[in-house]
């Protein structure tokens, strides 16, 4: 089981993603729903599933979004919370 970004979470197995011009679209065919992620949330998702270590992810996101690292931390936390609640991410083993 692969976790993402050292956050103990993983992309739910049923989820597909499409990289589009203006972000990423997550598709959940089982529940017949989709979620469009614009930037900077799209970057959060991609860095998460690419399993960058949490500290590196924070600094990368800060540069990508042009924000401070504290704000990047908050953005990551908000995204993780939402995606976990909505079932796009699910708990996984810690790396």
């Amino acid at each position: 089981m692969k976790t993402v970004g050292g956050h103990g979470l993983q992309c739910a197995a049923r989820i597909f993603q499409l990289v589009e011009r203006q972000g990423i679209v997550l598709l959940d065919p089982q529940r017949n729903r989709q979620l469009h992620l614009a930037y900077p949330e799209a970057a959060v998702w991609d860095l998460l599933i690419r399993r960058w270590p949490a500290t590196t992810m924070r600094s990368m996101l800060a540069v990508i979004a042009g924000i401070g690292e504290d704000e990047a931390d908050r953005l990551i936390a908000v995204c993780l919370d939402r995606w976990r609640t909505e079932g796009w991410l699910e708990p996984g083993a810690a790396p």
Partner: protein
Amino acid sequence: MNAAGVDCIATDKARPCLFVLPVNDAFLVCNPPAGVASLVNGPALHRLRRAVGQVPSAPSYPSLSDDLHQLAVLLAQKPEAPPAATGPLHPLFLGLLPTRSCNIRCAYCDFGADGPQAAAMSPALASAALTWYARFLEEAGHGRMEVHFFGGEPFVAREVVETAVHRSRLLADRHGLALHLEVSTNGVFEPEYAQFVGDYFQAVVLSLDGFQEVHDRHRPARAGRGSFAQARQTAALLARTPTELCLRCCVSTLNVHRLEEIALWFCKEFQPSAINFEPLTGNSSTLAAGLLPPDPYLFARQYAKAHAQTLRHGVKPVYAATEGEPSRTSFCPVGKDALIVSADGRISSCYLPQEAWLERGLDLDVGRLDAQGHLRIDTDAIVRLRRLPEDKPRCARCFCQWVCSGGCHVHHTYPGSPLAYEPFCIQTRLLSACRLLEEMGLGSVAETLLDDRQAMEALAQRPSDLFEDLPENPMPEAA
């Protein structure tokens, strides 16, 4: 000054337009910027020559038949100069050199892999360059944001590449720009990574030097093994993604005989958008590895076969020096305002290592980006580089000056380079003539030319293609 405060005005210098070349037992007369070319026999050329005179500018030529008269008028056109050599800064692209470091050891590498500049670029520096570029494009009214990644091997420095990819996407969205991301890679990375590359880059130029034996001689991995298996696997994986895959094959004496076979294999296995065949550039490393550039006549002949094979499969064949429409700049980024940012913040128009062009007495830097993210463009340098192709003594009488413009400023036509044609010129002259013939529907004439070494030499070695340098009687009237 334009909106971004960068204004580069260069004067325009006239270039000759009318050329004539021997092709088998006939003559190819052409005016490349006017898009006019014709194959005429000796007597017709003789009559053209007599009617048109030294400077073909007369509005009518009563001594000529209708067909020749029409041709003379077309040839004598004074076309408008191709655009883009003057005016405000208009970068061809923004280039990023995430690192000069590389995970393989190509025998012919002249990109400074693992040299003193092997440090990785900081993501913040890449972001600062991208931020400036996006703002510049919006203010200048340009709609396309084109970012190219070079190396070393860019994917050795993934943190900066991925940061730059996402930063580019965010900025393009914010500034309303159409984004084009392109990367040149050796394809030596784990299979899972190919999905990221294929999803996020609009174009990938992947080096694959044909079949395994030669590829591995050309491009050995660090542990002494070859890099073929991984590069081939990556090409196959990328072929299944949305990216435009361009396969770049370096040609040496080892694989020049098999270009047609290689083209066929590439087309069938990878369905690429383009296949680029480029002859090896010899240097001390290639000599040490026993690799030699191909004979230019043989390269031209073999490339032409590969070209035909590639076209049959709906794939674009590329030999860079003969591509594109007539222009005043070479096919390389230099002179086209390209801004290529190195890890140390230097901005150049050339992706070769600085020491390579300094050795040739060239300064290809055009600006600097400092640690605080302040970017400075040297407009004098931009203008100077735009004018670089104007000062190519070897090219002054060559009909290829309208497309290749002297080729690489560092390797081919550097200041003080010999006036005699070099192998690059020979293959470029032959393939440019073939391109003109094919465009006229005379592919069979091109094939005949490439089958006859003497005819090829007569064309390729001709010291002047200028119409005005034609002897008074190039062929006997009765020929």
